[in-house]
């Protein structure tokens, strides 16, 4: 297995609440790894550690052997240029148009001519299937279009690694399916490494090359989709059966 990112023994607490309790996971290069888990199991917090939005109390995030949790801000900014991230609520800049949103990373990090930037932006917007709406503002778009735009912005720098935070949450089932197809298709076409978190089994099985299940701040299973379906772990069985009866208890 060609490991691109290795997470070792990651711990994180907020006050007295321990959210990550020693996460270990290997992310394979060029594959889509989906982290599955119930709401509140720590998957969002985990994803934020990979991209440096949160610092762990203990543990390492190794990208080709370099520990990201210890990188200084200037070095981290160099590393971050290899990443793209799709946020759960899109996190589009609401003061900028569709074109400006998509062009933002290019304008910040490249010295490309405006025409060249325009060309790349057009290409990415076409890739995610957004019709001619460059001059609109994010507030004027539907949920599905916002997700597409966020995906275009995440992909505009041709990143090696793309993180997807709950890519289909809050979308209707049909739009969800379209977004899942789009994510899968772009990932396979562009060949980047993907890490997605979701609580939806359908999203998980549509996207995943590898499935990791997180429960109570730990990765309890990491395998292929087929292996996951055949798992004998009672917590995995409960999740697959989508029932409230079993070892996983929801904290009310």
């Amino acid at each position, binding site marked *: 297995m060609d490991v691109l990112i290795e997470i070792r023994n990651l711990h994180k607490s907020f006050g007295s609440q321990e959210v990550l309790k020693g996460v270990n996971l290997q992310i394979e290069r060029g594959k889509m790894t989906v982290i599955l888990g119930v709401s509140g199991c720590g998957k969002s917090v985990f994803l*934020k550690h990979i*991209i*440096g*939005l949160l610092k762990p109390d203990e543990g390492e995030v190794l990208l080709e052997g370099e520990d990201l949790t210890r990188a200084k*801000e*200037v070095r*981290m*900014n*160099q590393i*971050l*240029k290899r*990443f*793209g*991230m799709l*946020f*759960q*609520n899109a*996190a*589009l*800049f*609401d003061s900028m148009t569709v074109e400006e949103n998509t062009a*933002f*990373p290019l304008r*910040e*990090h490249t010295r490309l001519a405006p025409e060249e930037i325009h060309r790349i932006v057009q290409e990415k917007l076409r890739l995610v299937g957004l019709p001619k709406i460059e001059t609109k503002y994010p507030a004027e778009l539907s949920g599905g279009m916002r997700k597409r735009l966020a995906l275009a912005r995440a992909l505009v720098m041709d990143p090696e690694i793309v*993180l997807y935070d709950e890519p289909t949450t809050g979308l209707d089932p049909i739009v969800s399916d379209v977004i899942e197809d789009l994510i899968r298709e772009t990932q396979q076409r562009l060949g980047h490494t993907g890490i997605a978190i979701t609580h939806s089994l359908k999203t998980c099985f549509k996207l995943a090359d590898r499935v990791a299940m997180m429960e109570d701040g730990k990765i309890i299973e990491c395998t292929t989709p087929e292996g996951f379906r055949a798992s004998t772990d009672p917590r995995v069985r409960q999740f697959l059966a989508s029932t409230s009866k079993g070892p996983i208890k929801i904290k009310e």
Partner: protein
Amino acid sequence: MFRIFRYIGRMVLRALEEGGGIFLLFFQSLYWLFRAPFRGVIFLQQMEFIGTKSSFIVGLTGLFTGMVFALQTSYALRLFDLEYMIGPSAVLSLTRELGPVLTALLVTGRAGSAMCTEIGTMRVTEQIDALHTMAVSPVQYLVLPRIVSGVLMLPLLAAFFSLMGALGGYLVAVHMLGQSPNVFITETLYSVDANDFYIGLIKASVFGLILTLVSCHKGYQAGGGSAGVGKATTEAVVLASVTVLISDYFLTSWMY
């Protein structure tokens, strides 16, 4: 009994945390000030927002402050037959004190609150996290241009305030109270020197730093959705205003 200690302790801890956060933001901004890229357009936009767009309200307030000041002092000075001192007392108070302080309070209300709301909304909608993931320092992109604009524009606004105030004082003294224009102008020029002006400008610059820093800090730390942003904005305006007034006392006693 212990509850009182606990309460005081908690207050002290909160104040230290707040102050520490503001200083940290200040040093982070300094760190990013001398690093590429330099985003000229954003700096100009912020200068326009804080400076140009505040000039109307600042000028208007300055004019009426000067007018009211001339009226009030003339009432007191008449008792001692010192009415020729209306000009100097108005202009000295304006340049040294009222100009910088009132301008800072006005800009806090107008631009500081907007700044805090904008940054706070970007925080709760993950736009600040998005900046970070796109390898753009949110402090350099959002906070630094606002602080620099505050430090540069506040002295200009305060000077404009004082100028309009002097005009207001002149209008009242000459056209309402019947003082000779000559007396007003000569007495004012005789009593006010450049130093009085500089003191006002330095104060205004410091106030500009305080109000932008506090507003950005409050927005940056906002959490808890739209209610959280509203709360942060209220706290920003209160904290910035109070800090301006307290630091005014220390600056005045230092540069007296």
